[in-house]
């Protein structure tokens, strides 16, 4: 085999447009991190390591044929559910929430695993019953979603619970859940809202209330929102220029390498930068939709659609939160925020998208 053939085989299951899109996003991440970390290479280098690990995993998943992918659904879901129950029983409490499971060698956050596990399981379930879908199947699929979500909401990790609910809902929606049922659910959710309010922890209520009046908690979390809005707003149309964000560099912005990294970006690159970033996200999302539309099986269509829509949701929620139209829920900006775990989860998702795209010729029915 020549070197070229080897290379071709190596990239055979990488989808070039998708790779281009996420590559540019991760490059942006490194550039912004350098600024957010006060012009130091500390966090960018660590993030580079995270990226390397994430891309390796993505490549492995992309090379995994679809039937293998399907086979992982039950084990991943079962493992995730077991771990979530483990967390509920033996988890470590940190910041008033029980999210982490200490396995002796490492602590893990099983809710992260379920971001993939839940839609995977639901898509698998629908594929199994594709030929004879009845209302009962939708009920079972909904239960597959609600059990882990309830466990995560109890931790309490409301942000993750809502996001996983969204990803599961996308599967239901794409699997053809009738409009009437969705309307009913919406009405039900509204009716249950006061009840849910009672179940929330104080700090969660606080965060929601704060959305309406950030000044109220100007020393605590409201401070994040206020400073985030000032950073975004003061960036103007052209931005203050790379490494020149005053909010960032005068230490006004909290969590500026993680959840609030978008404020750094928006301050330094302005509205034009934001347009570019949203364009970049839309490019990735658009490619995801194309892969979804062309996907060959029921399972892959549902999976690809859910991954793509979830990715879009993450991006929206984070940017919405930093710019003050959504509550601060602790969702990172996908592919840009510092942090290994969320990056890994996202890249695994993209690995699946690529596998779906590149294996379909072999799988066409």
């Amino acid at each position: 085999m020549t070197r070229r053939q080897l290379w071709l085989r190596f990239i055979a299951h990488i989808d070039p447009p998708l790779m281009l899109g996420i590559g540019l996003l991760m490059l942006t991440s490194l550039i912004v991190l350098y600024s957010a970390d006060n012009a130091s290479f500390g966090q960018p280098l660590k993030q580079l390591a995270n990226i390397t690990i994430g891309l390796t995993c993505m490549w492995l998943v992309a090379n995994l044929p679809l039937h293998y992918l399907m086979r992982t659904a039950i084990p991943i879901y079962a493992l995730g559910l077991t771990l979530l129950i483990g967390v509920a029983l033996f988890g470590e409490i940190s910041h008033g929430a029980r999210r982490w499971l200490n396995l002796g060698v490492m602590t893990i956050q099983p809710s992260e695993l379920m971001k993939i596990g839940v839609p995977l399981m639901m898509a698998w379930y629908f594929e199994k019953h594709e030929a004879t879908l009845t209302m009962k199947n939708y009920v079972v699929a909904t239960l597959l979603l609600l059990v882990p979500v309830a466990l995560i909401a109890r931790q309490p990790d409301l942000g993750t619970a809502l996001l996983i609910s969204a990803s599961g809902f996308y599967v239901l929606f794409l699997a053809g859940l009738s409009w009437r049922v969705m309307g009913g659910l919406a009405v039900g959710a509204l009716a249950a809202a006061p009840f849910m309010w009672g179940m929330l922890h104080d700090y969660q209520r606080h965060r929601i209330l704060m959305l309406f009046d950030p000044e109220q908690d100007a020393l605590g979390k409201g401070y994040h929102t206020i400073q985030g809005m000032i950073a975004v707003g003061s960036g103007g149309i052209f931005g203050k220029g790379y490494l020149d964000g005053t909010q960032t560099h005068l230490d006004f912005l909290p969590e500026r390498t993680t959840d609030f990294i978008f404020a750094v970006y928006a301050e330094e690159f302005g509205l034009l930068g934001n347009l570019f970033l949203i364009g970049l996200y839309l490019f990735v999302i658009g490619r995801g939709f194309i892969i979804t539309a062309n996907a060959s099986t029921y399972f892959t269509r549902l999976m690809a659609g859910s991954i793509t829509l979830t990715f879009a949701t993450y991006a929206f929620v984070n940017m919405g939160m930093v710019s003050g139209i959504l509550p601060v829920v602790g969702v990172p900006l996908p592919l840009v925020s510092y942090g290994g775990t969320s990056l890994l989860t996202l890249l695994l998702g993209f690995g699946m998208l690529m596998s779906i795209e590149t294996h379909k010729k072999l799988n066409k029915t």
Partner: protein
Amino acid sequence: MNKHVELKNHLREIFYFRLRLAIGVGFVLTLMAILLLRFLYLQAVRHDYYQTLAESNRISVVPIVPNRGLILDRNGIVLAHNYSGYTLEITPTKTGGLEETINELSTLVEITPRDRKRFKKLLAERRNFESLMIRNKLTDEEVARFAAQQYRFPGVEIKARLFRDYPYGEQMSHLLGYIGRINQTDVEELEENDLAANYRGSDYIGKTGLEQSYESELHGKTGVEQVEVDSGGRAVRILSRTPPSSGNTLVLSIDAKLQEIAVQSFGNYRGALVAIDPRNGEVLAFVSKPGYDPSLFIDGIDPQNWDELNNSPDTPLNNRALRGQYPPGSTIKPFMALAGLHYGTRSPERTISDPGYFTLPGSGHQYRDWKKGGHGSVDMFKSIVVSCDTYYYGLATELGIDKIFNYLSGFGFGKKTGIDLEGETSGLLPSQEWKMRRYKQKWYAGDTVSVGIGQGYNLVTPMQLGYATATLANNGVAYKPHLVREVRSARISENRVIEQKQAFDLKLDPANYDLVRRAMVAVTQPGGTAVSASAGAPYQIAGKTGTAQVIGIKQGATYNESQVNERHRDHAWFIAFAPAEAPTIALVVLAENGGHGGGTAAPIARKVLDYHLLGKVPQPLPDVADKEGEEND
């Protein structure tokens, strides 16, 4: 979806799916459009507004630190309060040269080498764009002198701050503890508990004692002021203000005067004293001697003072009352006697003949009585009065370690008392299981023998022994000891009286209790081991002396007090409650290296009891140097 089952048309299926997907695409486009509109609004429409906020007039959120709550004694005497004073502070990055600035400053205000050392330490710990204190408690004259020359000192400012003051200094140090600067560990802990926001602007936090255990009450709620600051960081105007609410005031059950008398009664002895009202668990006095000057710690202790305190053989930083663990010695005997009566192991009438030593059957080892030649014929009453060791060697052996463990743990031995201070140690009440765990050895009969006179593996803290004594005094009805009686808030409606519920009731047999109490009264009467405790007292004192060995005595050797290095002398114990028939105070005294309980510890107890029961202030102030008590233990 169709209710009846049918095979789907594949193409139709794909069509419906793509329709749904198209809706998804529309959904995403809507979301992104919302974001773009938001950005357009923030970055184009409102850009000037935010630009102003960010650049020329930054909003600065300034925390307003609440006043820390006061600590009062039961009669309202102030034990910890705040006073306002001036500090001289330097922001290192703003000065021309740090060393020259300080030298120059010292010509205006006095700066001692100690101040310099402390400043260096602060400088090492903190970031140098922060304002760091070089001098505190400036006099008005110093303030005026500096103010006139301030223009010469960029980066040096006078700030008005509240200082914590402990008027009783050393006397209350182990009780009140102190506040100190918030360090990295504190910050992490605050973040962990989601309290970091409330501590913005706060420099101090309770580090030990009540200041630590009641931190959440004392700190108060931080207020906040949003101010516009110009580019130089000066406040231009106040936009909004939420006032802080001061910390709550703690009213203690401690009687400051009683505490003072207790401390002074120790004279030169080191040791501990805990006095408890047995009827409700209120701690009346809590002494650990020596103490230290708590004000040294508030702004970071300088290395010289730290070394002195930390390396002193007197270990002034050790809270003896709460954390010191000592063999209980003979003070355990009344409790052992109750155990014997409880299990019916020994009746009150049963007498033993004391030859001056005890041997286990089949062993030649002699467990000696403190009195050479023995006490002759001894029943239970006499065993307490003369503190007969041989009697208790035998009793312990007959009871066996399991019963001893069960009964004594009922009185709280081997367990933390749960007093409202942190860092309590739990002492040690040995058991078979404990020995196996600790030494991987089985329990031997010989181990039990010395447990009977409080010299085996057992260890108690003065706090624990005080609790047990209070429980005994109250006829077996225990109230958890506590120091804070009342928490007073700025809003009277939020005042809380902290009343202790009954912790447990041992349901002592009245006859057994009566016997032990009478014997303990006789201890302080002629013929007992603590005659000096009650000589001339118009009320009856029930007491028991004890001696905790510091060094072991070899088989066959004699212990000669005068030949032993002072630090190797035995520790003296005395437990007591009074008036014996209806006790309102129970106490424990430990005088380290005090020799015999009757000679040194009992007179200290007497002075405390006299003040508490009669209001009598010792005059002239005590002289406890009398170490030649003829009473023995």
